[in-house]
């Protein structure tokens, strides 16, 4: 069973494995540094909602439609 970023608990450190997103959006995320193997930390999360993550030293807010399509593993 693979784990999505959306399931990550606030404060947890994860590792990006890949994404199942429309190509253009996937490329944009990669340009922001979300490449396979990159560590990602969940900083904050709303119930069923958006989350704040830290990736390569920058913070991003991600909606649940995106976060639930990013595959991660425990770092």
């Amino acid at each position, binding site marked *: 069973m693979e784990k999505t970023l959306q399931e990550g608990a606030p404060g947890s450190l994860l590792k990006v494995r890949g994404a199942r*997103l*429309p190509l*253009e*959006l996937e*490329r*944009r*995320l*990669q*340009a*922001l*540094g979300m*490449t*396979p193997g*990159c560590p990602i930390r969940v*900083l*904050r999360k*709303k*119930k*069923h*909602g*958006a989350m*704040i993550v830290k*990736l*390569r*030293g*920058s*913070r*991003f*807010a*991600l*909606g*649940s*439609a*995106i*976060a*639930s*399509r990013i595959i991660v593993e425990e770092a």
Partner: protein
Amino acid sequence: MENLSIGFVGNPNCGKTTLFNAYTGANLKVANWPGVTVEKKEGRFKLHDHEYRLVDLPGAYSLTSYTMEEQVTRQYILSDEVDVIIDVADASALERNLYLTLQLIELGKPVILALNMMDIVEKRGMEIDTHRLPEMLGIPVIPVSARRKTGLDILMHAAAHHKGQEESMPLIHHHDSAPKTTSTRHRHQHHKEFAMVYSDGIEDKIDQVMEQLLKQYPGLSNPRWHALKLLENDPEITKAYPLDTPLIDRSYEQDIINEKYEFIGEIIDEVLVNKDKKAAVTDKADGALTHPVWGLPIFLFIMALVFFLTFTIGDWLKGYFELGLEAFSGAVLSGLTFLHVAPPLISLLVDGIIAGVGGILTFLPNIVILFLALAFLEDSGYMARVAYVMDGIMGRLGLSGRSFIPMILGFGCTVPAIMASRALENKRDRFKTMLITPFMSCSARLPIYVLFSQLFFGGYAMLAAYSMYVLGLVVAVLCALIIHLFDKKKAHLTGGSALLIELPEYKAPSAHTIFIYVWEKVKDYLTKAGTTIFIASIFMWFLLNFGPQGYSADMSQTFGSKLGQFIVPFFAPIGLGFWQIVVALIAGISAKEVVVSSCAVLFSVSNLTSPTGMAALTGALSSIGFGPLNAYALMTFSLLYVPCAATLATIKKESESWAWTGFSALFQIAVAWGVTFVVYHLGLLFV
């Protein structure tokens, strides 16, 4: 004197604009890039024996051709117009910023890396090896602080000396300390030529494609970059330079991105010390500002404070402006009378121009304070958090939290707000946001509320004006909700919002940046007062002083009156069945302040906002049966009906469709009429 053109490129939030402003000050030219509504800022200055021309390019994370901003940036850099590129990087987020740097280096133009925000880096206990970094990148690296104005001269100096250096110098760099690279079987010694060297497989591909490119397009400059773009299946380059032989079996874009980030990882390992130090201030502030429960109330409180300051401090300062205007108007009147100038001409000058334009100028303090507050929210880094905080609510309307940023900017001015909707990736979201953003009450509508609520609501004036902002927001939200319910095709990504936005570190806003931001808006406002409102005032004066029989002192015999009376039936059911008001509203399409300046001309009140002027206007209005409820109906209708001509032009440009622009205008009139009807008839029950 040598001329030098420099393009400023950088990620959003890297402090690029602050750095740009530090050089050019308020002395800059703002225009649009040809054909698109992306803003182009240009400034000139002299230093030593060079004249520098700086161009601020749109903020971008990469140089693909996916978005308008990135296309503009890329095309401009490739053009002959730019001599040197200054890549502004936020040193406190170096890792991500270097991705753009690597792409810029590959473009082949001389690049200089300006490491901005070094003060923040030091404060956090991090250190950057500024000797090793240029070695690894092969370009000059200059540490600067835009806010403290350090390193500015040396950066320009470096730019002047780096000009004309088409290829970067040979690099003293060894990729990856692991034996992988030393055992490279690649026939070229790329590591001596390029900062960014890919794995052997990709380098082989690049060589093959380059060879073919040069065969087909001899004289092509920077074939390596073109080869890379072809391997990435970049739509623009693939179309411009099709290859005769099918060399490219698949898109290598993902591999190219990954390898760039791998190299960046190597750089960061070597040059950044103590990289895991925490950004304590931002974490602490976010603890409250993005709190799951308190985030929203805090945001509402901040907005309430913004409007409170706008009305209280603004009104206090406005008093002094009015005194000045009154004195000026009186002096002109007695001067002209003394000189025996013909009465129609005196009327044109005093009742037309001074009343119209002057009346608008007295609202300047309110507008300055509103824009100061918006600039503060943007420059501090809070605005992006609003997108996160509002994401849940906006999600129920079928929009992402990001749509809320154009809506807040709409409190300032609808034109830049409509332009800001471009940041939304999804076209459906964009059009929806463009449709509801004009309902957000812009600063041009402020004079209408301030004037009429002071006239009719006495001690409750501020509450009445404030209620307009809430009403505008409620109408926007309801419209979005209704569209969402009837919208059969839902967003392309199901299961929540597709919000994606960077949350920059909080910082104390730069006074200089805020000053320039506000000054730009004030300049726009003054220009508008001097052009649109000036002409509209003269036109109104003409309409209201001339009739079929020529110059007429009896206003009911004039063209304006006849036109207004013709349309009155449309407005009667919503409590606005007064021809004067109808004329003012029609004139208000040129710019919303014109509703106020027209009232000044319509009722021949020369100093509208002073106590005597207001008393005169109240008298004139009550004599035609216009009471508080009518005033509230007028405020409501003014809030919601067709945005100004400039907004319509912007909607046309952004949507690239006249049909959509026309629909948008009709939609706004229909909503304005409907809501005002409800407000007026509800009011009648209580009055």
